[in-house]
């Protein structure tokens, strides 16, 4: 099993988990969530607006899974379905954020240190810098790159999630890495035109 499972699921892994989850078995839904939530977070990172928090969006996704998984028709496509739920959650949140007026600023002291990223682990500056640069990549390249970086995600699985041919995924990862490398080297990708073209693809 390539996915990192952080908590022992109560349910044995396998296709029956998906079938049982679709049939409303909460333990199966829980197992499904434990198995997939890390890469779902990566999809959210690729598609969320800068203001949105991954934690909030994950909760939206979990809520949607519980309430809508009975609409999944083909259990073989559960990964693609989960990705769609995640992408929709990110887009819906960004839309509602745009539609919502900004809260009036409070005339009080600023809050203490930001602990909203509850489980965020301190990483080195180089790593954080690359993450910031990755936000400038087109989503179609950023997403497979993020998914590949999640422990153990293979091309076949990413292809299944994104509903793409595996060769396409590998090409996008290779080109995404090239773009990221150029951005890291120059701060300004000389691949700007390439990125623009990629964004249209």
């Amino acid at each position: 099993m390539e996915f990192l499972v952080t908590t022992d699921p109560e349910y044995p892994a396998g296709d029956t988990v998906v079938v049982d989850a679709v049939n409303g078995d909460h333990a199966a839904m829980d197992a499904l969530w434990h198995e997939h939530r890390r890469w779902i977070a990566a999809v959210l990172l690729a598609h969320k607006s800068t203001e949105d928090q991954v934690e909030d969006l994950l909760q939206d996704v979990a809520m949607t899974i519980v309430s809508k998984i009975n609409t999944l028709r083909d259990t073989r496509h559960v990964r693609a379905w989960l990705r769609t739920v995640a992408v929709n959650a990110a887009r819906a949140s960004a839309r509602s954020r745009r539609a919502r007026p900004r809260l009036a600023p409070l005339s009080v002291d600023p809050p203490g240190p930001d602990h909203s990223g509850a489980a965020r682990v301190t990483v080195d500056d180089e790593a954080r810098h690359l993450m910031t640069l990755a936000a400038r990549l087109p989503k179609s390249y950023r997403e497979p790159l993020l998914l590949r970086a999640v422990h153990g995600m293979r091309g076949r699985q990413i292809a299944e999630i994104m509903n793409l041919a595996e060769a396409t995924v590998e090409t996008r990862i290779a080109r995404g890495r090239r773009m990221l490398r150029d951005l890291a080297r120059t701060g300004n990708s000389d691949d700007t035109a390439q990125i623009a073209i990629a964004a249209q693809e």
Partner: protein
Amino acid sequence: MNDLHDDILISQAIDGNATTAEWDELTARAEADPTIWRTLAATLREHGAFGRAVNADVAVADSIEMPAPEITPTARRATVSRFRGWSGWAIAAVLTIAWVGGVHNLVKTEPTMPGTDSAQPLTNHAGFGDGTTAAQLLQAYLDKGRQEDIVIAEVPERVLIRTRPAGTGGGYELLYLRQILERTVVPNLYEFYSQDEMGRPTLVRYVGNRGPSM
């Protein structure tokens, strides 16, 4: 042979997916053009750093659990529907009691204020009778909250959410937020600080900057 092909070979090598033939091809290419080794090294380094950042960010998922079925929107809607079903009868019953027993009995059943002695109804605190409006009750809550140091202030700006023409009688209906700044004191704060060897977030007591006082 082109840049994209080189990129794919490098990418395959970094991910450990390169076949023997692809390694041979990459080696041959690099012998002819040593910058390819440099590119391989740089990409490998960035892959490692990027992976650390991504896995640190997605680790937050480990703290998000599947909601229990009873708090899902469907369940919530069902609860509301049940409440609506009964609420009409409940209102009718209350009106009947009020008509029979007189409105003064109702004062004893009015809700209490958050953070106050539950034995004391809000109307007793504020000295309001049965004709109390919502605005008066809210004002009473603000006043009492200030006394008890629970309420700091109401933010003067009201945030407009939506406007639409009022149905009858002209004018406009406004939906807006009122913001009340409250304070509370808790004995301890905890934060997710790092990960254990299994990659799970560990919880530690927060001992850093306790934030500015107000």
